[in-house]
């Protein structure tokens, strides 16, 4: 709630003032902006987690509702007998209605709190999905590298072995060739060392993953054995 952004859209300045002061009396208040409906621009909504619609002109109300992104939570504060509510609900299923009764500010603060929590949960879920997709892409790359290790090792065997075969008879090589082959030999050993580090890192990560999986699997059992 603390980092949430709320927009109060109303043509009734008293509505905006009352709601803002009521919210600020709460322990954790969101950042609140109050705007007259005539100044509304659709792109503004993207900066807000929640839009509270107070009394606005009927023509502006439909214009605002149709321009809102479906991901934005919207609470409409309207009289309990607001005739168009049924129709609006069918067009905007996520629209919440807080009837303007005596205690409407308290009800609205409660409903808004829940809406903001839902928005935050939705955002966290989206981030988790995005992170999971990223991890999956990295895992595919890791698996590919692990599979390629076999081919790389085979290629290294050929380079290393043939370099050693040439070095068996150094007398047949010029000083420059000898130096070049020795370089190839030592660089191949270096690549092998790098591959081994990669291999040990890969097995360490696998062990960590297994340990974490085992912990997760053990959890319900340990909980169920509690007296």
């Amino acid at each position, binding site marked *: 709630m603390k980092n949430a952004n709320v927009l109060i859209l109303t043509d009734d300045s008293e509505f905006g003032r009352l709601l803002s002061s009521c919210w600020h009396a709460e322990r954790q208040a969101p950042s609140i902006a109050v705007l007259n409906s005539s100044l509304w621009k659709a792109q503004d909504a993207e900066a807000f987690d929640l839009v509270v619609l107070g009394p606005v002109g009927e023509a502006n109300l439909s214009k605002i509702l149709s321009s809102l992104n479906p991901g934005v939570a919207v609470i409409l504060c309207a009289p309990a007998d607001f005739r168009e509510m049924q129709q609006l609900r069918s067009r905007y299923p996520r629209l919440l209605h807080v009837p303007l009764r005596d205690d409407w500010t308290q009800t609205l603060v409660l409903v808004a709190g829940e809406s903001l929590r839902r928005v935050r949960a939705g955002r966290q879920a989206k981030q988790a999905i995005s992170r999971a997709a990223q991890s999956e892409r990295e895992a595919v790359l890791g698996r590919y590298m692990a599979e390629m*290790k076999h*081919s790389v*090792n*085979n290629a290294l*065997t050929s380079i*290393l*072995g043939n370099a050693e*075969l040439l070095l068996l008879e150094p007398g047949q090589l010029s000083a420059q060739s000898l130096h070049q082959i020795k370089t190839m030999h030592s660089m191949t*050993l270096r690549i092998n060392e790098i591959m081994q580090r990669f291999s040990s890192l890969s*097995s360490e990560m696998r062990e960590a993953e297994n340990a974490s999986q085992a912990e997760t699997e053990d959890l319900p059992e340990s909980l169920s054995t509690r007296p």
Partner: protein
Amino acid sequence: MAADVHFSTVEYSGDFFVLLKKVLIVDDSPAQVKLMQGLLDPEGYQSFGLNDPLRVEETIATLHPSVILLDVVMPDRNGFQVCRELKGSAEFQSIPVILVTSKDTASDKYWGEQQGADAYVTKPFTREELLRAVRRFA
């Protein structure tokens, strides 16, 4: 060991007889076989290459090698299978098997031991590493 008696050939080389110990190299890659032969032959071994792991038993039966260098990742029959079947056979179980493979994890080595392999050499190997492993048995 029996391998010394049965699995060597005596060749006349000019003024003297040379005892050549036979090494069977099983690897589906002809380049790898050629390479290992190039490393072993100058050291007094008589090496034979085999690219088809399905023909290991029949080759051993005619060749009587002192030691077998066996690749693991091969089509049709992998080195673990070949090793397990050789070590389970009364006829061939006494022949030392050295697994020569690019599979270098601890679990690969453990699994190789479980199949009865006598030694494990990981690719890429140096000439010394290969010779050290072969010299243990031949």
